[in-house]
């Protein structure tokens, strides 16, 4: 018995090492797939070790759970790349659900004799787990557009939200002091569940990258708390790694939007946007046809393409790849400028462009590409808006003032593919569109890029 316990611990130790290696290998695209294999090996080892655990008397329900989970998991692993943000949000919800359920079961197994330390981490586990569960479901719903994407705000929203959270934490404290008051436990789950919903209601689509990262961090921390409760070092490590990852991404995303966490969660951005949109006036813009656009692109020697959420919505990435090929064939140097918050989750654009077979060394981050714009002949913006808005640099009254942007306005010619002049998702007017050097290309991103490609290849052969 003692020996088998040791073997289990060693299995977990190896799994822990494999998890850390897995993330280490993810640092470069060259070794990244090895990272996935290491993660899978660690996972298999840990699960196999656990199944041999002497305390397990009944394998039927475990088998049912593993089979049903696999049946649900396979389609979730096969979703289209454009659906990756909502899939990720959904997986945060599942992770949080698992943690919350285990926490609940552990409480009722141990109550009313729960030591104070145990009750403290258990409270943390279920509060974080429950709010992450409903919050992530809401985020997934907004991303899948089954829920309205516009932020919904009302007076006193922040007070209501913070009040809910405070009550949940208060109940946690009471339970730590008096673990025999088991009737309070359902409230400690129910209130954070409500808080998760309320927390996401005022969040708009443009804030999704930050929110997804934050939920990722919460999911990790709740799993680490579960590790404390179960006394599992492996789970503490995995949760800490996930929490750290989510935290780093949240900080990156907030910086890229020049906003603090609290501002993202409690900022009620929507109201400011309405005010900004109100001052909008009709100004003349220059527009161009696909033929003219193709002519200018063909004459350029250096082109930077700036993709945004609009490219994902129009599923235009494969047409963009054809454009990349057509221009490269003519000897044009084509690169991509990727803003950290372009799209709906960190790295969203990179995945879509990689899916379209565009080499990753052509995908440049904001800081690496910004110096190139003054030497760029054409900056072609496909479905991006706020991340190119010069008002962030110049106009102190703009709601996005201070946000780091791609300096596309420094290129010799700027082309913007956009469906119409209607204010975009964020509702902030973009002075870029009224510059003399800017050409507006009105139309659907996929169709328009397709027309440019046809012009380019028609002229070529």
């Amino acid at each position: 018995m003692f020996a088998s316990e040791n073997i289990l611990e060693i299995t977990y130790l190896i799994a822990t090492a494999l998890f850390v290696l897995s993330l280490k290998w993810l640092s470069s695209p060259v070794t990244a797939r090895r990272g996935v294999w290491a993660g899978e090996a660690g996972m298999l080892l840990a699960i196999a070790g656990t199944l041999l655990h002497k305390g397990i008397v009944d394998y039927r329900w475990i088998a049912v759970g593993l089979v049903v989970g696999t049946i649900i998991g396979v389609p979730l692993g096969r979703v289209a790349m454009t659906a990756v943000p909502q899939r990720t949000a959904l997986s945060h919800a599942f992770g949080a659900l698992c943690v919350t359920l285990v926490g609940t079961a552990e409480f009722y197994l141990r109550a009313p004799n729960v030591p104070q330390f145990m009750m403290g981490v258990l409270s943390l586990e279920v509060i974080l787990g429950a709010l992450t569960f409903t919050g992530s479901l809401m985020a997934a719903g907004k991303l899948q557009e089954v829920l309205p994407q516009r932020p919904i705000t009302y007076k006193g929203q922040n007070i209501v939200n913070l009040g809910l959270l405070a009550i949940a934490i208060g109940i946690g404290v009471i339970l730590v002091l008096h673990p025999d008051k088991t009737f309070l436990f359902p409230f400690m789950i129910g209130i954070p569940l409500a808080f998760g919903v309320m927390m996401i209601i005022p969040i708009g689509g443009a804030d999704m990258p930050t929110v997804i990262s934050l939920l990722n961090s919460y999911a990790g921390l709740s799993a680490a708390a579960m590790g404390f409760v179960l006394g599992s070092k492996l789970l503490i490590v995995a949760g800490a790694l996930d929490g750290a990852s989510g935290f780093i991404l949240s900080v990156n995303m907030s910086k890229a939007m020049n906003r603090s966490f609290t501002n993202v969660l409690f900022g009620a951005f929507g109201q400011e946007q309405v005010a900004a949109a109100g001052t909008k006036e009709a100004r003349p813009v220059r527009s161009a046809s696909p033929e003219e656009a193709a002519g200018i692109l063909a004459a350029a020697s250096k082109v930077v393409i700036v993709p945004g959420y609009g490219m994902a919505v129009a599923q235009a990435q494969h047409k963009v790849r054809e454009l990349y090929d057509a221009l490269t064939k003519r000897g044009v140097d084509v690169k991509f400028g990727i803003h950290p918050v372009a799209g709906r989750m960190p790295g969203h654009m990179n995945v879509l462009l990689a899916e379209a077979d565009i080499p990753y060394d052509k995908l440049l981050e904001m800081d690496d590409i910004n110096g190139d714009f003054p030497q760029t002949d054409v900056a072609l913006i496909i479905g991006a808006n706020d991340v190119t808005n010069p008002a962030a640099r110049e106009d102190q009254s703009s709601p996005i003032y201070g946000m780091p942007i791609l300096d596309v306005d420094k290129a010799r010619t700027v082309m913007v593919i956009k469906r119409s002049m209607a204010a975009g998702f964020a509702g902030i007017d973009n002075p870029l569109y009224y510059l003399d050097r800017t050409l507006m290309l009105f139309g659907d991103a996929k169709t328009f890029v397709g027309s440019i490609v046809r012009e380019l290849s028609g002229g070529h052969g």
Partner: protein
Amino acid sequence: MQLDLVTSLYVFLLAAFIGFEVIRRVSPLLHTPLMSLTNALDAIAVVGAIILAGEGKTNLAKILGTIAIVAATSNIVGGFMITDRMLKMFKASGPRKP
């Protein structure tokens, strides 16, 4: 097996530091796969759920444990699959281009 508070905190603290150092080095290019991979690794919580469902001390533990296994397993399977699918797509520009 129970860990005491201090040991648990040591493990958490060290793992968080390693996490920060390792993950800071991940290229922003791969931030989406990073999120799906850490999510799959996080689903190691399935271990706790397996013990709950397998020990079957109460019916509640059995039911909640089984649902928790379903949720975590779907993350493991789906998470590793989609991470690998994404990473397979990232290719450097090689001799393929003229």
